[in-house]
């Protein structure tokens, strides 16, 4: 499972590298794009995800000591927090759509300063690719959590055998961690500078 996470790091790493290169090249466009981000929503989502990591850890813990009921409750909480994240993300995506900030389909960006709207389009392309890929991972995670819930409900996990809970836990933390990087990179670091 750790090896699989290394694979995932390389997968997101490709996008992070792309981000870095373009940020260095098109700093001003990055500032402009970043300033359209809803920091409040992003911050709430960060909090939501950190809470979901906590409930996930608790689920793993309760699975290990064999408390089926509390394991289920924690898994359900994690799942709900995951859906909350996706819901808020959906609100943000909707906002970008309304403001014509979706490259390719619906893009019209007013620009001032020495950068082109094309460069801002690249920022949003990367924004959607990175957060979209992250959301896909969240949805897969939600599927895995549901599977754990069913298995737990049937009493599959015991203090001796709870590897699946731990593995899904690792996966869930990894996906959270990706967001912990995405949030500052896309929302925060360029926000307060003036192009």
């Amino acid at each position, binding site marked *: 499972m750790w090896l699989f996470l290394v694979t995932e790091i390389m997968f997101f*790493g*490709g996008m992070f590298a*792309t981000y870095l290169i*373009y940020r260095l090249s098109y700093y001003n466009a990055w500032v402009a794009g970043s300033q359209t981000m809803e920091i409040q929503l992003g911050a709430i989502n960060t909090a939501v995800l950190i809470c979901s990591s906590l409930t996930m850890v608790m689920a793993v813990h309760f699975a290990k000591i064999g408390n089926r009921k509390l394991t289920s409750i924690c898994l359900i909480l994690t799942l709900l927090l995951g859906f909350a994240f996706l819901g808020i993300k959906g609100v943000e995506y909707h906002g970008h759509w309304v403001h014509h900030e979706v490259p390719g389909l619906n893009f019209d960006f007013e620009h001032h300063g020495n950068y082109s709207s*094309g460069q801002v389009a*690249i920022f949003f392309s990367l924004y*959607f690719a990175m957060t979209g890929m992250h959301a896909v991972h969240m949805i897969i995670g939600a599927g895995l959590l549901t599977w754990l819930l069913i298995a737990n409900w049937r009493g599959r996990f015991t203090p001796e055998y709870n590897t699946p809970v731990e593995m899904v836990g690792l996966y869930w933390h990894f996906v959270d961690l990706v967001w912990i990087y995405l949030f500052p990179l896309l929302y925060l670091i360029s926000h307060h500078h003036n192009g």
Partner: protein
Amino acid sequence: METAIQNTEPKKKNYLNADYGVMSWLLTTDHKRIALLYLGSITLFFFLGGFFAMLIRLELLTPAGDLVLSDTYNKLFTMHGVVMIFLFLIPSIPAVFGNFLVPMMIGAKDLAFPKLNLASWYLYMAGAGFIMYAILTGGLDTGWTFYTPYSTTYSNTNVVSAAIGVFIVGFSSIFTGLNIMVTVHRMRAPGLTWQRLPLFIWAHYATSVIMVLGTPVLAITIVLVALERIFHFGIFDARLGGDPLLFQHLFWFYSHPAVYIMILPSMAVISEVIACFSRKRPFGYNFIAMSSVAIAVLGFLVWAHHMFVAGISTYAAMIFSLLTFFVAIPSAVKVFNWTATLYKGSITFETPMLYAFAFIGLFTIGGLTGVFLGAVGIDLHVTDTYFVVAHFHYVMVGGGVTGFLCALHFWWPKMTGKMYPESFAKLSAVLVFLGFNLTFFPQFLLGYMGMPRRYHAYPPEFQVLNVLSTAGASILAVGFLLPMIYLAWSLRYGKDAGPNPYRAAGLEWQTVSPPTTFNFEETPVVTWEAYNYDEIDGTTKGVEVAG
């Protein structure tokens, strides 16, 4: 040593007759059956890719572009490349022989994750399905490299479907790599320390590292290409300020290491075969093992040598050129150690050994011309000419496919329990060697004289060499078809092989052929070094089956 297992009844249960019916194959979690599923699928795609190659060679028989249109020609070489690389070469040895042999060589019952193993075959077939769909709905004309902006903006073919296919096949390869790595770490038989592992395992371990680290980068690159094509993202689009060169960086970050995914397993096979047929422990075991790891590491640091003319800085080109020369060192270590193993060995010339010799010769030519290409000055002269085509095929066909055929013959008795007809096999090995050289050596000359690749027509003065090349390709095709026929024949009429027809070392030879579902009656305990040919030949006692 064979007495203990020689009396086995031929009718005894083994993994092939343990269960019958289509579902017993499609739902199997036996690594040996999955290996055979892979063997069947990749053979199919090998001949499909070969069919495209024959059409290419037929077109190039005459200078005028008279057999196919230039568009069709573009599709032919693209589909040849995509099918051969993603559907044949990358899964060839790791997914067939790695799957079959890694658990047997380390004395395990199966791979660490049998269900994941089956899932990887289904992913492979699903990916292949998408690629086939792209081919059937008008083909693909981007070249196997999917270079932007052509692939994202201009090509009218079904790039998205092919991209999805490559993406999915990539995950199958990641899962195979994961499985092999975890198996080698966790499932070795008692006493089988890292220093006692066969070199086959070392090379497959290195290959798996590349698969696990490299393939996801290709996956995300392909996703970005697909997004750019569907939603007009601007990441690689220069009109928006995007950078097509970035695509090449990301693509080659995987695709250069990918050639080591294709060649390292072949080297793994050669190390086993050379040791067996010269009856010696490989010279410099540690050096061969470590050179596999070194290739895996250095392979990640040389990608930009594909981009010397693409507009990278001279300084970067010099660095990557130097790093490229470094990769030649571990490759040369292997070649020198193999030849040193032959020295004073008791060499016999069975078919696998012929292929191994072919491999050493052809790979050396392919590798050395790679050093030429790594030198910036020469590369500028021969970029995008047939010199590159010839170099690539010397490594991939002369190395990769030869290694695959070598493995197929060497372990065929173990996989099926039957011997192939030796004289036919030798004939086809010679045909492959001659046909191959006749096909691709003229291409070195053509490339050096300046014939560019990827055109369906060429000036008349290049015709003689092109005719030679096409003639060679015909011989090569016969050399590839023959094994199909006699191996199928041997399934029914071949004589029984017995557990160890070559008196080879290695745990896989100590169980019956074909093996039972769980490989070993009892978990073997290893108390000897790998390649103990002195003991096998010297004393009657030799290897003991512990238990």
